[in-house]
């Protein structure tokens, strides 16, 4: 079996440290060529069946360079399709996606209502939908495939503070939608997708947090003030040490839960994702302060990490949401 470290190495080779915000289309192409869309897909569907933590290992490395290609939404859609009951064309669709056809799943809420085979309403959180021909919509109505060229379908870009990603709303107005899972099956899909989502958003966050801390420590070593490197000032050293502790703690929980994600309660994964994203926020927030003025300029990279951290905090349930759920679960235990 392939070791996680091998996957990490290949990801780092393809997306070397420091080369941040790589071109989106080229990155997507490369990700598909590297076979990363196959990693988490079960073997009987043509995938490698390496599991969520394998996909996480790649995403974590890509998070370090603020990957612009929508690997996470594609992996979520794949996980959803793979877990769906068999439907006409399922295998072919999965194969096409693995070959590089982009089909995302929404990572924010969908407020839609179904009427027969059509959907109306707004689906939020579709990353890079401009690259997609169809999307998988998860909502309380079930999971639907929607052709973006169909009548009654409109994409609306929602500009983000996070400049490393592009996000769209999907406005549906009596649009044809193909139900691939409803009712009880929808709940099963939801949990399967949620497990992957929390692992991958956490992975992206911890990769980004790690890169931010590295960037910051390096900056402090180089930058001098009062004739010494800033990295020699004990107050700054202790803050960096505390950030390092926070990062390592969040990484440990991530690794334990990602490895056991297939059987873990969703709330445990959501709480883990909460900690990972909050750690990303903590580190990037203080990283800007530790940089001083340069961190406030558009041309210096650190702010991109902060903005990505802030968005990650909101994806697939906010920190507040998951803290509350974790508290409720522990209280009920």
């Amino acid at each position, binding site marked *: 079996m392939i070791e996680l470290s091998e996957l990490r190495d290949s990801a780092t080779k393809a997306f070397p440290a420091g080369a941040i915000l790589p071109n989106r289309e080229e990155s997507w192409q490369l990700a598909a060529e590297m076979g990363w869309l196959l990693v988490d897909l079960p073997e009987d569907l043509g995938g490698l069946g390496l599991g969520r933590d394998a996909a996480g290992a790649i995403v974590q490395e890509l998070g370090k360079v603020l990957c612009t290609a929508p690997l996470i939404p594609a992996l979520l859609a794949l996980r959803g399709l793979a877990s769906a009951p068999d439907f006409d064309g399922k295998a072919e669709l999965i194969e096409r996606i693995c070959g590089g056809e982009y089909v995302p799943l929404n990572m*924010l809420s969908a407020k839609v209502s179904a009427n027969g085979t059509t959907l109306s309403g707004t689906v*939020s*959180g579709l990353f890079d939908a401009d690259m997609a021909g169809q999307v998988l919509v998860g909502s309380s109505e079930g999971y639907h495939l929607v052709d973006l060229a169909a009548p009654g379908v409109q994409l609306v870009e*929602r*500009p*983000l*503070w*996070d400049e490393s990603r592009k*996000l769209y709303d999907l406005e549906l107005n009596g649009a044809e939608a193909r139900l691939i899972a409803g009712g009880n099956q929808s709940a099963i899909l939801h949990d399967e997708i949620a497990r992957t989502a929390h692992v991958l958003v956490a992975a992206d966050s911890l990769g980004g947090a790690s890169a931010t801390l590295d960037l910051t420590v390096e900056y402090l070593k180089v*930058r*001098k*003030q*009062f*004739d*010494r*490197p800033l990295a*020699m*000032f004990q*107050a*700054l050293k202790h803050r960096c040490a505390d950030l390092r502790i926070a990062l390592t703690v969040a990484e440990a929980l991530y690794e334990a839960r990602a490895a056991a994600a297939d059987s873990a309660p969703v709330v445990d994964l959501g709480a883990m994702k909460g900690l990972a994203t909050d750690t990303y926020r903590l580190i990037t927030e203080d990283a*800007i*302060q530790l940089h*001083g*003025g*340069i*961190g*406030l*300029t*558009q*041309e210096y990279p650190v*702010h991109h990490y902060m*903005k990505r951290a*802030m*968005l990650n905090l*909101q994806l697939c349930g*906010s*920190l*507040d949401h998951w803290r509350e759920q974790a508290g409720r679960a522990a209280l009920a235990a």
Partner: protein
Amino acid sequence: MIAAQGMTLPVTDQASLDTLRSDLRTWLAANKPQGWRDITDHKAFAESQRQWFLKLVEAGYAVPHWPAEWPGGGRGLTEQKVIYEELAAADAPRLLLSFLSTYHAYATLHECANAEQKARYLPAILEGETWCQGFSEPGAGSDLAGIKCKAERVSRPEGDVYVVNGQKVWSTMAQYADMCLLLVRTSTEKAKQAGITYLLMDMKTPGVTVRPIEQIQGDEEFAEIFLDNVEVPVSQRVGEEGAGWAVAQATLSSERGLTLLELSNRMHSALARVSELIRAHGHGDDRGVLRDFGALVTQVDAVCALADRFLENRIAGIERVGDASIVKNAYSRALRAYSALGVRLGGIAEQYRAPITFGDLNTGNWMADFMNSYAWTIAGGSEEIQRNIIAERMLEMPREPKGWTL
């Protein structure tokens, strides 16, 4: 105790303070700019600032801290406080563009310049001539004595000049400035501070290039100034050659208390934005959110009280070393907490990029406010520098030895 500078005027009696307040309130109701929050172009914002300043000059509210010989001048700190309180209460625009001119340039010229320089520059400020500050440099952030921008004295037929080469950063609205308070190094042989000279530089001089700094929230409040063989006449020097450090102290100590009082009051009014957010997102029955909001309200209340007390102490002449550092850090951390709570409670909606409001720190565009809050934890002597000051000069904990290098 630090003696309050130029603030020895007697405290004005209550009746005339009340009159001032009600006059200004009436005037503001009729004259305060409308729609300034909706300006989306930075140039247009600068122009609106210029107009607003000239309007205040005309009405006699622009330079209350100048001596009585100037129109609108001769007001004590107590009166100045009333003016700032009313400007904040009316949600009138802050005076960003002219601020450096009426405080920093004014104080420098007033305290350190020669008669000719005063005559040339002070009246012009009231006519809208705008100053910027060329102090900070890349690589010398909070360590002002470490500046490297080089000035060489050269003879010219029309009189000696300094030929200046170097770069300045974080110069507030320098892209709109007519003149610059410029710190340069005229000697590298002496102690760091002793090699610094203070110049008044015309921004239209050949060799001066200004590039606005693109900030992470999309503002352009600051600029870089590149100086390429810029010739500044020696007559434009303030104080002696090598005496710039002392002149810079006059510039830097020109203001602190009023701005933070104004900003604290504005943040206090803007707590209503958090209330709106809580209502809009249906958090009104979430006891945790209520507690977090209550903690923020109390923190902001406390910072207002602190800023007020600081100014009162200044008025009373009993300010202590370090007091200003405490007010600055306390304010900036409240500002961070304010915006962070907004980002949190606003949820995903705050991650969609929305237009920013120029010239305000509590706009309700929570991500922009969050990023803006760093301006106060970093600029004007970073939070870390203020902690050093508090620890060393107030708590009298020992400094690190000076000669201590790697």
